[in-house]
């Protein structure tokens, strides 16, 4: 059959965030697949350099709505390491509890999205109804349903009172029952298993070679979890299991995420029981001394990495964020080999893509010249003025001159 190239995205009902994939099809079989990133690039790393550390905590938190506490904690940990601050224990435990609550909310959201991508809207409605329980608990604890803003440099901003702790435990009990039901459905519903099993296979060697992280890697048998391998917050003092699976396909990833949900309930119960009393934060200096730090965090989607370089002033010199989806995106091409068009949405959804986290600065590499071209601000502006003049017939040079004087 003749080959057809269809675009999935940037706007497509299967994608929750814009990303451009072009798929070459022959009938229903996928012959080739390629991805273009960058639709969500907002210049956050540059914006961080122009704001103080206190302001940056909130900016970094808004990289993504679902993994917001992940990014915020990772950044704050890096800054605290540079400044040499000893965060009090109660603050570490509170950070852990919020982190696990966020993991629960993210995995329940993922279950719903997976159901929606295979046309099983009932699962979507039920899991998102149960997700409201977690959102209400988080709203009562932190003041907002997403973007919790509980971190500050040196500790946390709010306390968990005994009444709130009781509410958390009640919510965790309800959710544990519902999660057991969803695990039953995922392993027993015939049509769901038909759509999820055998789809998007990624063998163990491929997962290691392509650098997969998070549940995507753990479903291919890679036993790696930053909470256990490089403990941060209070994870060093809590005991939990790392869930791995050997199915190597989307079904395995579903089982891994459901297992992680059950583990999160255990971790929260332990943390609430063992949380010591004490201060909530230490006073952090406004000027962070020079130094650099590299901090890792196990976000719901995988390993999230932040690098912060400080130079003694109030504003950071360089902040770099590497989100887990960037590592997992390389594996999608491998997973879709010999796949069908109908499997495309669920395979992309199975790595739990969060393209808002992914798009950071891009390095342009000219293949023939073998050189790396990093465009500076002025070069980027004149390049775009040229492009629009040549390709669209629009002339922005006057506007460019006016703005260049104002911004620099």
């Amino acid at each position, binding site marked *: 059959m003749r080959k057809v190239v269809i675009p999935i995205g940037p706007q497509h009902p299967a994608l929750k965030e814009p990303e451009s994939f072009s798929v070459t099809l022959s009938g229903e079989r996928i012959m080739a697949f390629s991805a273009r990133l960058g639709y969500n690039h907002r210049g956050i790393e540059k914006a961080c350099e122009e704001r*103080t550390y*206190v302001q940056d905590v909130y900016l970094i938190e808004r990289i993504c709505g679902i993994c917001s506490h992940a990014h915020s904690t990772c950044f704050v940990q890096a800054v605290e390491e540079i400044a040499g601050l000893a965060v009090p224990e109660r603050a570490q435990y509170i950070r852990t509890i919020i982190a696990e609550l966020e993991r629960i909310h993210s995995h329940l959201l993922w279950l719903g999205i997976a159901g929606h991508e295979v046309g099983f809207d009932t699962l979507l409605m039920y899991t998102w109804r149960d997700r409201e329980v977690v959102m209400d608990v988080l709203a009562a*604890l932190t003041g907002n349903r997403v973007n919790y*803003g509980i971190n500050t440099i040196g500790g946390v901003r709010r306390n968990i009172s005994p009444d709130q702790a009781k509410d958390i435990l009640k919510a965790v009990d309800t959710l544990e029952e519902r999660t057991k039901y969803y695990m039953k459905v995922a392993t027993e*519903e*015939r049509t769901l298993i038909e759509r999820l099993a055998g789809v998007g296979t990624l063998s163990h060697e491929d997962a290691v070679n392509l650098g997969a992280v998070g549940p995507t890697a753990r479903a291919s048998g890679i036993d790696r979890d930053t909470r256990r391998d490089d403990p941060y917050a209070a994870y060093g003092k809590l005991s939990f299991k790392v869930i791995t699976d050997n199915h190597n396909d989307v079904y395995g990833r579903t089982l891994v995420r459901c297992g992680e949900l059950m583990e999160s309930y255990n971790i929260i119960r332990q943390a609430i029981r063992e949380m010591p009393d004490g201060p909530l934060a230490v006073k952090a200096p406004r000027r962070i001394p020079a130094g650099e730090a590299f901090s890792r965090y196990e976000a719901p989607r995988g390993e999230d990495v932040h690098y912060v370089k400080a130079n003694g002033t109030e504003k950071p010199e360089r902040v770099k964020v590497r989100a887990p989806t960037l590592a997992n995106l390389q594996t999608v091409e491998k997973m879709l080999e010999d796949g069908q068009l109908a499997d495309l949405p669920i395979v992309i959804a199975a790595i739990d893509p969060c393209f808002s986290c992914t798009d950071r600065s891009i390095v342009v590499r000219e293949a023939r010249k073998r050189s790396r071209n990093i465009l500076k601000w002025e070069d980027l502006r004149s390049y775009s003025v040229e492009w629009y003049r040549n390709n669209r017939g629009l002339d922005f040079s006057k506007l460019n001159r006016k703005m260049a004087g104002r911004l620099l």
Partner: protein
Amino acid sequence: MIRPGAMIRQVLASIFKKPATISYPFVKTEMPDNFRGKIKFNPQLCIGCKICMRDCPSNAITITKVGEGLFNCEINLAKCIYCAQCVDSCPKKALEATKEFELAVLDVKKLKVVYGYEAEPAKDTEGNPE
């Protein structure tokens, strides 16, 4: 046991349960106590240190002096990200977060809210009102 229609019991039981959807806006829900909604300013406690202005991530709050020891506060509700960092930074606890979240208006000028005293009337050089 793998079978099609594994959810049938729960699905049929849902007909008899109350729907989980709240018919907003006919039914309003109350936000929890800690909720970070619109920020309120108490002019009596402000000492004009402007730490809140320094710490605001989006430059939404402006403190202006209107008299000796008297300060007005203007909050731009469109720029505010409701993080309540100003509430934590204020040394005199002059700012507080309320539970109001229905802040949409049709006129963009209404989004700049001013709290505080009316500006003192202008005086000429001898201290008499003009």
